[in-house]
């Protein structure tokens, strides 16, 4: 009841002081919201729940003796405090206080636009939803868009302009800039450099162009730590093109190490397209072959998956091209297909040829240009170009040198680094980036920067780069500022602010306006002016804001001018370096390759300080709060390694200590490490966890190293995973069948369910109400991206508990995504299954609760009444699905006002000692209910959308009234694939599953 009254252990006074000085500015925006209470909370530490096991010193001891006495005696005796009501001074516009409002805006990932609808409660952004009208979203989002809310409210965000270590103001900086500017005006901008990440923003691109026109000698460089999107391509002359895939049209898909389902630019859309091409009910399903070194979400969905070292994939492509009769594919140096491979190759080749112009071959961003070229050549040969794949003008804005390299400057970070070393760089402006952390070790950016007199850093956090900067400038969050960006298909959209900058940050375009005009202009004006050509009048402008996308801005897709990247200056494909390793790999067994990948949960480091993402179990490994080195079972056997054993990775003279994780389906000689960890200046959450894999990276081969050696250190480190057992133990929790089987006998998938969904029961049925809520989860559509988990976390105020607590098995996620492996460890079948509350009609949890805290309501919901719960935890013991979560400690942070402001006001914040679980988003049901009841009408199907359902890119989750035969969910449950998990227990779950259907190639049958 009152543990929030108790001061936490780690009272970080220094930070608090610093904050306090800038408190008021932040508070003015919040003061209007509610009671002024919690202002003192300013001084409280950030994450008490992460400091639970603080050592018990004498003072701590006295503190808790006192506190617990208070608890023992007085907890029940504290009457509600007298609160106050604060009126607005001026009347609001049309909307009523207390009602949420939604705004269409644009978030970006790796520079590409992701359309979003953001809920605003009393002026506070609290939840991100996808924008149905946006091509990259279609109503869904990825995990990062969901986590943007937490990022916005992150108390660790940079909160003021800093000159070195001194707090300064924007005015100070503006003055400083005028001095610099005077010099650039004289020398044409010599020594002025701008470093950005991938960007598609028309406004910013135009400003950078203007800058280059104004200062001919100024240079712009681009550095993208997160890896390129599949939609970036090149044409014959090496000029950039955009590539457009139609996964929905393709009948046979082959990915060469291309994880298109989690593509940064269009993963959400690709997922949707891919799944819409795999509907067993229609009898037509595409077939996916995946060749990849390390298991990915895409590989998990593949009908056939071939683990193959990254370096050998080019060789594999050559062998395949040969079979497809592609001309001059270059010397097939290394790759000698084994009999298995040959069998695979023949089968795939045959399958590809069998479909008329409706296959698709995709190569991943980590593959060399040659592999891309081969993939393209094969697409051409198969007649896919113009059908399943097309090309258009580039979407990313690129510096001039990138298109026409001058004086070995290709606009890359590498070029910038060498320029810095020779003292060519006088002023470097970093627009939202952290090169000091996220670049290859060999560039040694940190000491290259020593040669740069003026480093200006604009960023959300005062990170590794920001702390080195002469001037650190707080960047306004995407939800705080005006901006624009383009989607994977070129569609431009506008980003509008949901709230005034919490810490007085400014956006990149506002800063650029200062650079160009010498004073800040309003972001809105800049964007408006930029889009003037498309949005002539206010109506068009407002329409674009409302819909969240500027109409008719998508690229025209052509099949002409196919991209043919060449090896530097050559005219034909060549056997490339990778073939050397390729050859070595096929010759001896000792050679190893090291693969670098952005972390699936926290990217390349830009999300390190995000608790939601840190605690999100990473696909397949279910690890949280850490990065590991993924090794194959073979390798583990060879080096006698177990999960968590620390090894030393040696490559390019670099050394790194990393815990290993045995990854079924990992290519034997590939070791995968993830970026984004080992941060030193990320914030409270992201600092000092994991290791920094960049230490082994080289700029000329950023995604793989071919000289890896590993040495066991004998140390072992604790890894926090949310799932310890990946074997289904023969229990038919996830059910699957093959397409041919399914078409022959639709019952095949669930036939072995001898109990049926409703075994007889002695208990009476629950009281029937006007509606009967139920959920259906299509395992054939679930790609295991875990967006549902994090959307639920955001919607339902689910706390972050920290690594230690996760390690103890106390994570709080209401909907988890289970993974299971089947078959041998080398090439396992991988399954994923989202598990929310089953809302059992005969709920085992209910009859064991002594205080009636978990009960059924008349519409069939198994509700958990937090305020009645005393925490016996018997309900959790008795839950066969183990979907209940318990607040073993005070997890919800009641001290940090930012988090208070971030929370969904429609959902109770649970205190310590209370059981909680999925509620089918009851707040959404009630809101819709009230809306309908006010009009005395029935709720329409689809009027209630749960958070997990809304976010799902593949529409795998359907929710609604199962008493209405016409509802989406009823139709889904009518499918022959429908089954209930553990139905034999007689729990009668309201949440049921649709069995997964695979579409294996008969020619490879015995292999799967």
């Amino acid at each position, binding site marked *: 009841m009152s543990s929030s009254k108790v001061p936490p252990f780690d009272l970080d006074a220094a930070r608090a002081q610093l904050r306090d000085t800038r408190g008021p500015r932040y508070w003015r925006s919040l003061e209007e919201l509610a009671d002024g209470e919690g202002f003192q909370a300013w001084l409280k530490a950030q994450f008490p729940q992460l400091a639970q096991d603080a050592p018990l010193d004498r003072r701590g001891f006295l503190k808790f003796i006192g506190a617990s006495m208070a608890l023992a005696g007085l907890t029940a005796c504290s009457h509600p405090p007298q609160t106050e009501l604060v009126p607005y001074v001026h009347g609001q516009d049309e909307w009523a206080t207390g009602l949420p409002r939604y705004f269409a805006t644009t978030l970006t990932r790796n520079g590409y636009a992701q359309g979003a609808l953001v809920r605003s409660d009393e002026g506070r952004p609290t939840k991100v939803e996808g924008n149905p009208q946006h091509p990259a979203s279609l109503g869904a989002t990825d995990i990062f868009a969901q986590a943007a809310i937490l990022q916005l409210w992150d108390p660790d965000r940079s909160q003021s302009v800093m000159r070195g270590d001194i707090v300064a103001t924007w005015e100070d900086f503006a003055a400083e800039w005028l001095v610099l500017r005077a010099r650039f005006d004289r020398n044409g901008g010599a020594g002025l450099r701008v470093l950005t990440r991938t960007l598609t923003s028309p406004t910013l691109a135009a400003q950078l162009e203007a800058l280059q026109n104004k200062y001919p000698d100024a240079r712009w460089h681009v550095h993208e730590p997160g890896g390129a999107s599949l939609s970036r391509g090149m044409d014959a002359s090496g000029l950039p093109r955009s590539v457009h895939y139609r996964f929905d049209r393709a009948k046979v898909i082959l990915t060469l190490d291309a994880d298109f389902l989690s593509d940064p630019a269009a993963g959400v859309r690709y997922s949707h397209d891919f799944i819409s091409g795999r509907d067993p009910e229609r009898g037509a399903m595409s077939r996916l072959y995946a060749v990849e070194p390390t298991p990915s979400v895409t590989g998990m969905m593949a009908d056939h998956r071939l683990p193959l070292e990254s370096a050998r994939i080019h060789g594999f492509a050559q062998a395949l091209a040969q079979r497809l009769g592609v001309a001059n594919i270059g010397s097939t140096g290394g790759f000698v297909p084994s009999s298995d491979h040959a069998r695979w190759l023949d089968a795939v080749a045959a399958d590809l040829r069998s479909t008329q112009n409706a296959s698709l071959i995709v190569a991943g961003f980590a593959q060399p240009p040659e592999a891309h070229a081969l993939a393209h050549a094969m697409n051409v040969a198969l007649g896919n170009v113009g059908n399943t794949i097309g090309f258009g003008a580039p979407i990313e804005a690129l510096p001039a040198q990138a298109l026409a390299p001058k004086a070995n400057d290709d606009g890359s970070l590498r070029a910038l680094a060498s320029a810095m070393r020779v003292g060519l760089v006088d002023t470097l402006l970093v627009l939202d980036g952290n090169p000091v952390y996220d670049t290859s070790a060999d560039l040694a950016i940190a000491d290259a920067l020593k040669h740069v007199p003026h480093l200006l850093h604009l960023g959300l956090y005062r990170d590794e780069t920001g702390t080195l900067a002469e001037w650190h400038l707080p960047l306004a969050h995407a939800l705080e500022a005006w901006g624009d960006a383009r989607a994977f298909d070129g569609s431009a959209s506008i980003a509008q602010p949901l709230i005034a900058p919490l810490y007085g940050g400014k956006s990149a375009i506002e800063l650029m306006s200062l650079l160009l005009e010498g004073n800040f202009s309003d972001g809105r004006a800049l964007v408006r002016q930029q889009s003037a050509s498309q949005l002539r009048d206010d109506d068009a402008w407002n329409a674009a804001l409302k819909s969240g996308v500027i109409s008719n801005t998508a690229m025209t897709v052509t099949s002409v001018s196919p991209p043919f990247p060449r090896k530097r200056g050559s005219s034909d494909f060549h056997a490339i370096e990778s073939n050397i390793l390729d050859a070595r790999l096929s010759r001896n067994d000792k050679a190893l390759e090291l693969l670098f990948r952005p972390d699936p949960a926290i990217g390349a480091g830009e999300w390190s300080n995000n608790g939601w993402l840190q605690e999100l179990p990473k696909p397949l490994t279910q690890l949280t709060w850490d990065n590991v080195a993924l090794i194959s079972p073979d390798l583990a056997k060879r080096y006698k390694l177990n999960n968590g054993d620390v090894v030393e990775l040696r490559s390019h003279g670099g050394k790194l200590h990393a815990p290993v994780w045995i990854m079924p389906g990992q290519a034997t000689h590939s070791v995968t490490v993830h970026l984004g960890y080992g941060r030193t200046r990320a914030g409270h959450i992201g600092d000092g966890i994991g290791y920094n894999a960049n230490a082994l990276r080289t700029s000329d081969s950023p995604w793989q190293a071919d000289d890896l050696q590993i040495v066991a250190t004998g140390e072992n480190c604790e890894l926090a995973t949310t799932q310890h057992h990946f074997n289904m133990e023969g229990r038919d929790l996830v059910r699957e069948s093959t397409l041919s089987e399914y078409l022959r006998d639709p019952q095949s998938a669930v036939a072995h369910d001898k109990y049926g969904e409703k075994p007889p029961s002695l208990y009476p049925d629950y009281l029937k109400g006007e509606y009967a809520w139920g959920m259906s989860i299509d395992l054939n559509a679930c790609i295991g991206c875990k967006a549902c988990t994090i959307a639920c976390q955001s919607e339902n105020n689910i706390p972050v508990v920290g690594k230690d607590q996760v390690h103890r098995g106390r994570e709080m996620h209401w909907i988890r995504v289970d993974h299971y492996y089947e078959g041998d460890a080398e090439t396992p079948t991988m399954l994923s299954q989202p598990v929310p509350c089953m809302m059992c009609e005969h709920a085992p949890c209910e009859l064991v609760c002594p205080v009636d805290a978990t009960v059924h309501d008349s*519409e069939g919901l198994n509700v958990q009444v937090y305020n009645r719960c005393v925490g016996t935890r018997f309900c959790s013991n008795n839950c066969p699905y183990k979907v209940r979560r318990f607040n073993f400690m005070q997890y919800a942070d009641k001290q940090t006002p930012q988090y208070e402001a971030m929370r969904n006001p429609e959902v109770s914040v649970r205190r310590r000692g209370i059981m909680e679980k999925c509620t089918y988003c009851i707040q959404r049901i009630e809101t819709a209910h009230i809306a309908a009841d006010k009009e005395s009408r029935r709720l329409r199907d689809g009027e209630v959308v749960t958070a997990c359902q809304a976010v799902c890119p593949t529409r795998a989750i359907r929710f609604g009234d199962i008493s209405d035969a016409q509802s989406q969910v009823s139709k889904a449950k009518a499918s022959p694939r429908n089954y209930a998990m553990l139905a034999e227990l007689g729990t009668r779950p309201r949440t049921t599953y649709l069995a997964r259907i695979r579409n294996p190639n008969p020619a490879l049958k015995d292999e799967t």
Partner: protein
Amino acid sequence: MRVGPLSTRNAGAHKDGGLAQIFSRHFGFLFRLAALAALVIVTALILLWRAVMAYPAGVHDALEQPIPFSHKHHVGDDGIDCRYCHTSVERSAFAGIPPLSTCMTCHSQLYTDQPMLKPLIAAYESGVPFHWQRLHKLPDFVYFDHSIHIAKGVGCETCHGRVDEMPLMARVAPLTMQWCLDCHRAPQKYLRPHDQVFSMGWHAKDQLALGERLLREYHIDTRRLTDCSVCHR
């Protein structure tokens, strides 16, 4: 004192002497008295505890407000409709506290020189609002929605009492779960026709008959009115 080995057996023989030497004559009586007292004290403590747990501002106590705003004057005498100030009561969970600009629609002209309005004028000009003392506060885990109650014909008066007779606003309802359930179990006892929802002092001729009729008219699904999920999330 040393008593013979068979003391207890024949304690009867010299019991009075035996006990009297240890305890005074009235001890037995005092002992019983003490026991009784203990009982009383424990009961008192329990009652005290219940009292402490009670709502800060009791039912019918008016609170000191920055401006002695009189509903009696505005509603009773001037006959201003509830919705003039509590604008969102029909659309939102929150009835809405009028922005100062609403007050100023009249008070920029009327009683501008009244000392009691000084805080209003000051706040309006400075843009820093004063704080009202809140009377109706439900716990965070209770999700009450004004709009649905209005839509289903629950009068303002039913919960807030005769505000048109309150010079200073006071709470008339205990706002306990028991109190909510009283209506949720039998809404017909309180339902009003839509046109009487905002009126004060209205009485039906035959409330029950009317209530039963309105239950049907308003399509009130009484089955779920007592579901936990209706108020708690």
